[in-house]
């Protein structure tokens, strides 16, 4: 019998970074910015959180000396700050200087991964440990604190209450993002900017402000995905390149969810499940089969891309001006 009670919490934990990333990217894309730098932003968000928490843990010395609020607030602040700077960099290049969005995004991903690995390596050297990783267990414990009744309510508790606060925050942020995009004036204007900046401009909407705000907020949300991964999923252990290619999966999710963060909640759990399915399928000693199962999320992504590209409904298409810079003079 397939062990759902064990599988679902793992799938959810796996899905949260993807959900953060895809929510952030959806908001960004709605403004017409195709930010392929999201994987890099998530790396930067993670490492900045790690740096903040590392410095704080060092300063306090023992876990008992740490203020519970600051333990969470400091990494959170560092993470948001790092991601925000990445967002500002992207906007400055693509909106103000009108650089090519694809090139800028890819460069930022390369930069972000390198940035993470460089400072990760430096911190590992500072600790002087034998293993190539940093363990921030005190901070991680704070991030992983679950509802007190999670352990006592059986499978209900395991499936619904056994996560750290960042997991619930991801779902709430996704729901709020979906509401804002579809139901509010801000969302209407944001969509107009992404669909037809010239129209939005003529209607008196500040294109630059919307693009900057959407992209920076999107980056900050995506950065939280990186933070969740290190502090909660990986139990506070940073090792270089461990985050892997989740950032790319997050971008694939944006297309999969047809630019709807609320759909993203379920879709990311599906992706998270596929990501770890190989652990739950008995494959015996045949390791090659395991590798095949590991391919699943990527195969699904390819299939989904094919299907979504074939759908012709206009509402399900990417924002019309996605990836294009806007010059007022070129109307």
């Amino acid at each position: 019998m397939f062990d759902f009670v064990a599988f679902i919490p793992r799938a959810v934990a796996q899905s949260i970074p993807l959900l953060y990333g895809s929510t952030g990217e959806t908001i960004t894309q709605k403004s017409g910015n195709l930010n392929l730098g999201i994987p890099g932003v998530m790396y930067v968000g993670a490492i900045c959180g790690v740096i903040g928490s590392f410095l704080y843990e060092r300063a306090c010395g023992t876990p008992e000396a740490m203020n519970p609020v600051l333990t969470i607030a400091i990494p959170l602040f560092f993470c948001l700050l790092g991601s925000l700077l990445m967002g500002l960099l992207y906007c400055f290049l693509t909106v103000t200087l009108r650089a090519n969005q694809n090139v800028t995004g890819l460069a930022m991903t390369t930069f972000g991964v390198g940035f993470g690995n460089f400072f990760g390596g430096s911190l590992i050297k500072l600790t002087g440990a034998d293993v190539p990783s940093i363990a921030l267990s005190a901070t991680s414990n704070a991030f992983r604190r679950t509802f007190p009744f999670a352990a006592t309510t059986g499978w209900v508790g395991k499936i619904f209450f056994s996560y750290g606060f960042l997991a619930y925050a991801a779902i709430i942020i996704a729901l709020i993002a979906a509401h804002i995009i579809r139901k509010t004036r801000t969302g209407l204007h944001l969509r107009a900017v992404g669909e037809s900046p010239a129209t939005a401009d003529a209607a008196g909407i500040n294109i630059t402000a919307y693009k900057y705000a959407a992209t920076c907020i999107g980056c900050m949300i995506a950065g939280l995905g990186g933070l969740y991964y290190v502090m909660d999923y990986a139990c506070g252990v940073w090792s270089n390149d461990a985050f892997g290619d989740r950032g790319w999966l997050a971008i694939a999710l944006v297309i999969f969810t047809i630019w709807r963060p609320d759909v993203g909640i379920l879709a990311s759990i599906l992706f998270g499940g596929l990501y770890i399915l190989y652990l739950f399928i008995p494959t015996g000693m045949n390791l090659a089969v395991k590798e095949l199962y590991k391919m699943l999320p990527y195969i699904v992504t390819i299939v989904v891309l094919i299907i979504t590209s074939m759908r012709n409904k206009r509402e399900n298409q990417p924002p019309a001006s996605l990836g294009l810079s806007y010059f007022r003079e070129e109307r």
Partner: protein
Amino acid sequence: MAERVPAVSLRGITKTFGSTVANKNVDLDIYRGEILALLGENGSGKTTLLNMLSGIYYPDAGQIFIDGQEVTIRSPKEAFDYGIGMIHQHFKLVDVMTATENIILGLKDKGKLDLKGASAKIREICEKYGFQIDPDQKIYEMSVSQKQTVEIVKVLYRGADILILDEPTAVLTPQETDKLFAVLRNMREAGKTVVIITHKLHEVQDISDRVVVFRKGEYIGQMITKETNPQKMTDMMVGHAVTLNIERPDPVDPKPRIQIEGLTVRSEEGIVKLDDVSFTANSGEILGIAGISGSGQKELLEAVAGLQKVEAGHVYYVEDDGTKEELIGKDPLEIQKMGVALSFVPEDRLGMGLVGNMDLSDNMMLRSFREGHSVFTDRKHPHDLAEHVREELEVNTPGLSTPVRRLSGGNVQKVLVGREIASAPKVLLTAYAVRGLDINSSYMIYSLLNKQKQSGVAVIYVGEDLDVLLELADRIVVLCGGKVSGIVEGRGADKNEVGLMMTKLGGGSDLA
């Protein structure tokens, strides 16, 4: 009317773009509750003037008064604050949004976004004036006329009481036009002011209370529509013939070269662009095509060049010995090989025929890259040709490797026309070859065309300036709304007569 205070008064408005004067010292009064038509040929400055009123442009000189108060209008938003809204020819709508969402876009109302309330208000406006749109329909599902309606409702929703419509009927079928006019009359009854820019006389007669005529950026005069007739309006619109002293050598041994019979073309939206057009273009003569822009000139040339789907009719290429060959159904490359060259200068100059980012030689190569037998392209001949065109036509460029997009408009056009002529065509189709050129460059193009004519080429020249056509062309085909309104001899043609043909089928001055 004289005792009423005008809602809008323009005084001494002047606007220049570079060296071209778009408006010169224009005075105009607009009164409440009237439909005012601005009549003039293309480029007579009607749209520019009203763009200044709606905040798109800012006048170089002059004053704008609204209800007697002097105002400055810097942006479309400020124009709205004065109750002025303009509906442009190119719609500004977001395709994937509903009509309602588009209409309220950019409004900074307080409180929650209330789409239902907005829809209800839109329905109310629709009912009041007789619009027929569904506020919840997506724009991409709408026809052109519905999109236009959304634009009009958008302006009304924002509380405008002076509406400016820039050639609103250009994209409409006759039935849709009637509907639009009915709505405009309803708006007049409700006390709104409507200003409509047009160059169609029958529309002026149909809808307007008063007509103001513009010519070459200047205010010519105004008339009460009921008290005037097409003859008078045309006289004002085209003015007296101006002598340009363009050379016109006699046709050389004219023989039929292109024979067009019953050509009918529909646009993708199903609007008839050419209706049963028949005429013959002879070798060794320049055939002018006159007509208000959008009367089917582009479609006509494209049909001959094989770029346009044809619904009915024939285009024959006639050899010297009289054998005919059908061009319709052939692909553009074949037609080109038969010696039909098309040089079309669109409004943005680079849109057709030249690649802006490529240099002169590479652009020459666009015509010849298929020649030769090696896998490598022949770069030498295009290079020589570019050098030749540059010398012959005095193209002012830093070098042959300069991207065409960096050249000035006149030079771009010389390159385009020069390349087409260099292919030694039997038929040369040119459209707007002198668009935006200064006088010297224009005369150079005219003499190029004359040279082609004298060497026996059948030149078809689509022009905007009637004065030029009258002096350059041997015969003139006048188009009106996609139909041939008449064919006149270039020598001795009367400008007013041609002008009347352009605006009214057959050109008769009898009132319908």
